[in-house]
């Protein structure tokens, strides 16, 4: 058992298989899952490509500094060609909205595309760029995010390997108490609950970007830090027993949790997307999601 922050293995095949299985079981999420399956193929190629690049020294933070990776330092000139290609392929697999926006971005040329990518990697708001393109910032964010996610995942894997080899100094990740990823600084996409031999009901947060999981305190809102039990509600449904909505009554935010104790075969990233009805229910309840998922829900 290792309580330290760690990335689950980037098993793209398992993600695809899970998405295909859920596609058969959950027709209500079919459009999302069909798109996800196609997108995972694109991301898998990007992950393989990024794994062969030597970017780690450029993006690694100084010893003892967190997050460990500074994605804004990625060489944009090397990425822009791939990003253009990604936009073209995304247009082929996407919905009308995705296709329209991808074509719009492609038509704007590589400089505009590079601006979008640079702003996203630097965690700057995309509002101005979205306004110039006449689209919603959340819709625009899909492209740099879907593109950067496998790159971040590949870099996180490289960083973990390097740290293991070098026994990296600095603050060990297991002492990480923050609500953002210790590796890439990304926000939490979801919570994962699991049992281990000596610790029952562990709660980990999973990064929306590099998929690193880090332990997070039970009974604490990752957004506002509320820790009063009466302010934190858990909602479950019989249809999806391994998924829950964790609501904070103080900030009205919510995060979905995937309970691997109830379904050890679940792939949190995929199951979270496939449980769209929970998001719709939360929306009706007036809650806002701490971090929309890859497909913008």
């Amino acid at each position: 058992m290792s309580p330290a922050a760690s990335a689950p293995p980037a098993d793209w095949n398992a993600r695809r298989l899970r998405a295909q299985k859920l596609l058969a079981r959950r027709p209500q999420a079919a459009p999302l899952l069909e798109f996800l399956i196609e997108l995972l193929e694109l991301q898998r190629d990007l992950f393989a490509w990024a794994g062969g690049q030597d970017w780690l020294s450029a993006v690694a933070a100084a010893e003892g500094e967190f997050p460990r990776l500074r994605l804004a330092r990625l060489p944009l000139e090397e990425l822009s060609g791939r990003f253009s290609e990604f936009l073209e392929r995304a247009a082929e697999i996407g919905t009308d909205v995705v296709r329209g926006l991808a074509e719009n971005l492609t038509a704007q040329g590589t400089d505009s595309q590079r601006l979008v990518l640079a702003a996203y990697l630097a965690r700057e708001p995309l509002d101005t760029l979205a306004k110039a393109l006449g689209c919603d910032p959340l819709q625009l964010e899909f492209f740099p995010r879907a593109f950067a996610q496998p790159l971040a995942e590949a870099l996180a894997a490289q960083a973990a390997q390097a740290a293991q080899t070098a026994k990296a100094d600095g603050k060990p990740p297991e002492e990480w108490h923050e609500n953002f990823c210790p590796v890439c600084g990304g926000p939490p996409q979801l919570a994962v609950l699991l049992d281990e031999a000596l610790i029952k009901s562990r709660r980990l947060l999973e990064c929306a970007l590099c998929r690193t999981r880090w332990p997070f305190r039970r009974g604490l809102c990752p957004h506002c830090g509320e820790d009063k039990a009466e302010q934190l509600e858990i909602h479950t449904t019989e249809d999806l027993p391994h998924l829950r909505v964790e609501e904070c009554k103080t900030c009205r935010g919510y995060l979905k949790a995937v309970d691997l104790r109830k379904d050890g075969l679940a792939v949190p990233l995929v199951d979270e997307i496939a449980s769209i009805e929970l998001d719709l229910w939360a929306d009706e309840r007036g809650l806002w999601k701490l971090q929309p998922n890859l497909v913008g829900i």
Partner: protein
Amino acid sequence: MNLSDSSLALKRISASPEPVAPGIRQNPEIAKLVDISRCIGCKACEIACKEWNELKVEPTHNFGSFQSHVDLSPDTWLLMRFNEVEIGGDVKWLIKKDACHHCEEPGCLFACPAPGAIVQYENGIVDFNQENCIGCQYCVAGCPFDIPRFNAETRKVYKCNMCIDRVEAGLEPACVKTCPTNAISYGTKDDMVLLAEDKLEVLNNRGFQNAALYNPEGVGGTHMMYVVPYGDQLEEYDLPESPVAERGAISALGAIKTIGAFLFGAGILATALHYLAVGPDTPDENSHGEG
């Protein structure tokens, strides 16, 4: 009965087949009763245990649980374990005070091959005597609750001794004294069983129909018992349903002794029968002459 009468007369000694001769004075059996329904998970008992027993502070960190440490250790004799389960549509936290249960039939003692390394007092406390411990860790394997912990530096094994020095002085164990909600009670075993019955009645009236006393028979009962609100969820509390104390070394020694005594008696009997049937053996004069 006054608990200060609970002297430290020995009842069992490891690797010693003979039962210890009972003293003239009858000592009361003592017990702790942990009412999990009253526990708020504050972990004050963990701190009290560390302080009183002067156990080393072990740095810990957040690992996504309410537990303070991952596991028991030679310097952590008491650990509150937390498990979140859904019962009746509600999320419940099941808490377990993980420490030595001080079994009436202690598997650790039965497994121990080192004379005097583990003793059981008449009051029920099972204590480790590290001076006699040979570090074989048989006790670790013999404990059905997985409590004793081996220290690789000292090559000895450690666990809760129910604050035996306090008990000897007529005081309650440190965890009992510090508990802010009186979730842990202390007294004679008989009184604690009666108290548990009262608590179960209250819990039953509050709707906890499966509330139960955890005092498993497979180990002869324990001297740390639990009142468990959800008695049908013992596995979720990480409490073994039917723990059994294996009488390994002790029973082997007893069996060998019985067989030896039988063979010795049979030998004497055979000699006597041979004497009666054949008479005394006389020297053979012919063979004597040849010699």
